[in-house]
């Protein structure tokens, strides 16, 4: 609707007034112009009023030209002027509309630039759209390829659709929405009848969200009044949709990248954790590396450690009674108990060798001894269960020795493994096998004992010296009976003095006295097989003479 007053046309700024004025003067005519309230805008009123021309703008009368015949010319000039002015205004109005659009898009871009997630972007878009397009409510839908469902990114204003129907009426909606079009829906009956739209909705306008020729969703506005949406409205909505599509796509890609990065990180972490279970990280750390990937052929480190060997006695005959599967199950449950006992005392398992375990305790021999005691207790526990299942109890021997050890990586480029090369390993292993001969649970060498500060915390018995096969020097060994059953432990404590005496005599080659001492022990505690062993040994020496090497050492000819 044009707002144009006659007064404006005839104002000083417009040449029209002066043209008309000079015309009237020239022709000596009698013409005056009145506005719609009867005020004179130009000229003078006179008696002659032969002509009366109503001036109209948009079919509305805004004034009248009165006078003689010249009035017709004047009216014509005014109408010309009005037309020109009207055109100018119309053009100006259109340009202003465009300018407003530019301003809107500018502001929208600025706002979009600050949002980073899809829901926020959608909410901003709905806000801007609702500001310029008459509507009651709006929604931004996204087609989620993963779940194959429509997803609501944002909604505004009054609810105008039934959410469950969004998921169930896929076909109908897809046809309309994902066709990639932008449309004004004047006939909403199909959607209302399908129950997708609420009954009060009268008009709908929507625009597809597209990126790379792929339709990813839509922005939909609705009104409960019958609105005559214009092409301009649709164009505006499409412009907003275009900008937000790109922003939403970026946001979704960003989120996807973040998610995938996290998943990869998690996967790597799991692998790292897993490798730690197969290759002890203490090992890698000792080699001076932080990550297993740094480890290379030839890496090595030498350290004084305590090596511990454990073995189930007569396992061969035990395993013969079981099937391979039962065997495996047994070993599994056995190792499951031993592992934690070792780790609890700062040790790590270097190798599982069937029913035997080789563990390394880098810090202190006391750790190893504590672990050994706990391992034996676990065996007792296990035996209780076995007894209730009518299974034969198992017996385990533990031997340990403290000395230098080289841990290193050997093999070839394609197949590497951690290896320990050390005499200490051999000694520990042999000490373990001695446990059977001496009928003891735990044997530790003198070197291990030396490292233990609070010896009084343990129940120990010296077992004298032993010459291991192939070794030049003899090793002094000790028994730890902390893990023995309580009655047994008490008995050993009672006979401790006598026993130690016996060993001492033995080392001094006073075999008679030794024999007597051990007899004392056996008399008090017939169940002390170790004492019996020494008793028999000393008797044998007395009866048959001293062994070849002439030293009071028990010679071990077996491995």
């Amino acid at each position, binding site marked *: 609707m044009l707002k144009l007053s006659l007064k404006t046309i005839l104002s000083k700024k417009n040449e029209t007034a002066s043209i008309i004025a000079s015309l009237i003067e020239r022709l000596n005519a009698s013409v005056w112009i009145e506005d719609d309230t009867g005020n004179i805008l130009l000229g003078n009123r006179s008696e002659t009023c032969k002509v009366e021309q109503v001036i109209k703008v948009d079919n509305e009368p805004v004034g009248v030209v009165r006078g003689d015949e010249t009035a017709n010319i004047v009216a014509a000039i005014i109408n010309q002027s009005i037309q020109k002015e009207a055109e100018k*205004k119309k053009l100006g109005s259109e340009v*202003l509309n465009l300018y407003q659009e*530019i301003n809107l898009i500018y502001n929208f871009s600025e706002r979009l630039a600050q949002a980073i997630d899809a829901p926020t972007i959608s909410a901003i878009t709905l806000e801007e759209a609702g500001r310029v397009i008459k509507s009651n409510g709006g929604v931004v839908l996204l087609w989620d390829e993963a779940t194959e469902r429509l997803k609501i990114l944002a909604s505004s204003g009054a609810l105008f659709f039934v959410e469950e129907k969004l998921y169930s009426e896929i076909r109908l909606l897809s046809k309309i929405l994902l066709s990639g079009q932008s449309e004004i829906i004047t006939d909403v009956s199909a959607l209302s009848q399908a129950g997708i739209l609420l009954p009060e909705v009268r008009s709908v306008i929507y625009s597809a969200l597209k990126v790379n020729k792929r339709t990813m969703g839509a922005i939909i506005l609705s009104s409960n009044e019958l609105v005559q949406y214009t092409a301009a409205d649709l164009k505006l909505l499409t412009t907003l949709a275009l900008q937000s599509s790109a922003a939403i796509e970026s946001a979704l890609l960003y989120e996807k990248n973040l998610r995938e990065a996290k998943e990869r990180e998690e996967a790597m972490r799991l692998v790292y954790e897993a490798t730690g279970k197969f290759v002890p990280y203490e090992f890698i750390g000792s080699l001076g590396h932080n990550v297993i990937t740094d480890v290379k052929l030839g890496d090595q480190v030498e350290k004084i450690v305590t090596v511990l060997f454990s073995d189930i006695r007569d396992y061969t005959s035990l395993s013969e009674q079981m099937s391979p599967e039962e065997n495996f199950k047994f070993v599994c449950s056995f190792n499951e108990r031993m592992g934690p006992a070792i780790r609890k005392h700062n040790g790590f398992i270097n190798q599982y060798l069937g029913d035997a375990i080789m563990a390394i305790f880098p810090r202190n021999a006391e750790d190893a001894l504590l672990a050994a005691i706990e391992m034996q207790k676990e065996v007792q526990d296990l035996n209780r269960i076995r007894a209730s299942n009518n299974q034969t109890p198992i017996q385990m021997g533990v031997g340990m020795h403290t000395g230098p050890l080289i841990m290193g990586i050997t093999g070839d480029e394609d197949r590497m493994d951690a290896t320990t090369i050390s005499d200490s390993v051999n000694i520990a292993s042999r000490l373990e096998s001695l446990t059977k001969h001496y009928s003891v649970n735990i044997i530790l060498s003198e070197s291990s004992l030396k490292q233990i500060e609070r010896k009084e915390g343990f129940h120990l018995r010296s077992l004298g010296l032993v010459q291991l096969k192939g070794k030049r020097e003899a090793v002094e060994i000790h028994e730890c009976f902390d893990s023995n059953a309580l009655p047994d432990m008490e008995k050993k404590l009672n006979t401790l003095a006598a026993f130690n005496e016996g060993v001492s005599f033995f080392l001094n080659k006073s075999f008679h006295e030794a024999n007597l001492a051990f007899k004392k022990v056996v008399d008090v505690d017939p169940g002390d097989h170790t004492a019996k062993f020494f008793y028999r040994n000393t008797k044998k020496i007395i009866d048959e003479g001293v062994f070849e090497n002439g030293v009071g050492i028990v010679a071990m000819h077996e491995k």
Partner: protein
Amino acid sequence: MEQKLLIVDDEAHIRMLIGQTLEELEDEGVNFFTAENGEQALEIIQAERPQLVFLDVMMPKMNGMEVCRRVKKELGLNDVFIVLLTAKGQELDRQKGQEVGADVYMTKPFDPEKILEKAREVLQLQN
């Protein structure tokens, strides 16, 4: 008192657009003036003493800042309300605008609604 309004911009389409935005005020009796450079603006301001001036900053020869400074600081015409208009990205001018005594600062593309609102406010013409 007669209400007067001056639009200063070297670009014709901006002068036209602002005029178009405020057109209803013209029908309400406000007198519109336009100028296409700083010198013209100063002449009109001194001659007509408009209550409100929309003043573009980026103009050749004498720019909006200079015009504002002369009007406010040299001539001391404090009853002339000056709105400085500048393109987005030149917003550092905001500080300078304060120094030369501008009353309000707006960026282009301008928001037609805001322009109309400000004009009504200054000229005390309620809608």
